[in-house]
């Protein structure tokens, strides 16, 4: 099978304007990511992992350089269009889950559907089957508060999957979990990568996590030192 390019960074730079001068967060990043990869992004804190992740997910824009996502040149797109692509093609998983506390697990999973152009009639069914995929469909009506950390992260993963995205961006997904639930969550990611051929990019500093990925990108002071 021919490898399809998903992400292409060309000479990408990110410079923050801080109080005490400029901060060069990413330096001349060149990076190609193909569909179906399982990638770990590692590096010390402050090395630029999170910035890289934010730019990947259009939450932030690069200062210079080219970012091509599925044949779209991101810097040329408007916020509206980026929101649409983010909604359809990118699923986020965060360290502290980021579920809306007032909504039930099921409603949280359905949240991305609300921002689609067309809302399918069986949204609820879809959300339930996603919860089933991550193994917690019996907790659908629970509020996040009533769920354990591992269960909350499963809800977040189900939410990231609901719009059938091209890529899942996971920012320290196991950072707030104990080792047992960490490995459960990682098993889930591995399964999604293997069985559904989903592209998954995980930012982590956990060796146990990066060890399981097929490709490791190491950042140091905003530059890729190992790929």
């Amino acid at each position, binding site marked *: 099978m021919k490898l399809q390019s998903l992400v292409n960074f060309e000479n990408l730079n990110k410079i923050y304007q801080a109080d005490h001068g400029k901060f060069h967060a990413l330096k001349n990043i060149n990076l190609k990511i193909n569909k179906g990869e399982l990638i770990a992004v590692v590096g010390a804190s402050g090395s630029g992992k999170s910035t890289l992740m*934010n730019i990947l*997910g259009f*939450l*932030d824009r690069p200062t210079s350089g080219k970012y091509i996502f599925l044949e779209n040149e991101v810097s040329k797109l408007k*916020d*509206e269009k980026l*929101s*649409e692509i*983010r*909604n*359809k093609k990118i699923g*986020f998983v*965060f360290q502290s889950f*980021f*579920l*809306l506390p*007032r909504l039930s697990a099921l409603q949280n999973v359905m*949240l*991305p559907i*609300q*921002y*689609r152009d067309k*809302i399918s009639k069986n949204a609820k069914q879809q959300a339930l089957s996603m919860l089933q995929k991550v193994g917690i469909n019996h907790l659908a009506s629970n509020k996040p508060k009533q769920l354990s950390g591992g269960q909350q992260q499963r809800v977040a993963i189900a*939410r990231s999957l609901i*719009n059938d995205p091209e890529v899942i961006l996971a920012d320290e997904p196991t950072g707030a979990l104990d080792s047992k639930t960490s490995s459960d969550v990682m098993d889930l990611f591995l399964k999604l990568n293997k069985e559904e051929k989903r592209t998954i990019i995980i930012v982590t500093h956990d060796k146990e996590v990066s060890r399981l990925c097929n490709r490791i990108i190491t950042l140091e002071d905003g530059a890729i030192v190992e790929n």
Partner: protein
Amino acid sequence: MQLISYIKEGLNNLFALKLRSILALTGILVGTASVVAMVSCGELATNEALKQFKTLGTDLLAVSLSDAREDKNSFASEKKLSLNDAVDIGKINNIIEVAPYTQLYQPMIFNGHELNGGVMGVTESFANIVHVDIDKGRFISTFDKYAMYCVVGFNVANKIKSFSGLNALGQQIQVGKNIFTIVGTTKKWPENSFVYANIDNAIMVPILTTMALSKYTSINNIILRLSPDAKIKIVQDNINNYISERLASKQTFFRSAEELVARMAKQSQIFTVFLGLIGSISLIVGGIGVMNIMLVSVVERRREIGIRIAVGAKKTDIKKLFLIEAIMLSLLGGALGVFLGVLISLIMSKIWHWEFTFFLLPPLVGFTVSVAIGVFFGFYPVYNASQMNPIDALKSD
């Protein structure tokens, strides 16, 4: 995202933040209620003030005579308008009915009890023109001339009844040194601003009698009924000519119903606008309340905003989410406020014994303005929310 789901979500959020929503709601509610109540009460008061003209008609013209110059000999007889001259004003074009009257201040005594009130000298036409309705007996007649008959006002009749236990009709009252026989009693008189006296507290006697009783009595007031197509200005000029031909030293002063109505309406319009302005201040305070609550809400829900952006919400989605909350707050506050405002004006009308009428305009304006205020003051926080950087929003605790 569809409107219905925005509304559902907005309601959920407002319910989740109960106390805060109630506070914001109360601000708008009180503001709207005060605008609606104040403007409605202003309108009711206007209506009440103008009500007298409905019974009286707007075709009345009152003429008052006064001395042009301070003249020490002003009681010289040739300086008085005679009854005949007064009645002949009716010959001027467009004047249908003439009612001259005089006022006399002499102590009135019944059975040793003092009756406080004035004595009015009237003609037969007076009853018809200023709507004095007879309860028992009859009114003063042209044939009474100099007779010592009187018709007593509603309150005077009641007093006499309470002093003697007898019906006033047929009793006798001492006025100054003379004894008058009561030939009629009147019903309660709807006050109006054409007669400078309260007829309920007065007794009415033939006008010639008052002129004979005291040489100081003169006809200084005449009430006229004009034909409907009369041009008031022309009639006034004609009356001026008529008077100056006879009494050069007299000055005339006119009050027409039309002019009075216009002046009253204008006055109460200013009054109503003023009340509305006072009400608006509280409405603005309510709006600032909404703004405050929404600002806090946006800051507190920064993370939620970040999450929504991360799952694909556009700026407009975020705007709609908060704007709908602001609109729902002010809609609900406005609706309850209108209800409360109308209720207050109803209660006020009961307290003041005003006739209650439902005015559509104040509630409509109050409601619209309250919603506009909510949206206006909600907009800044909403804009803030939509401009939030998702990374910062997600980082916040």
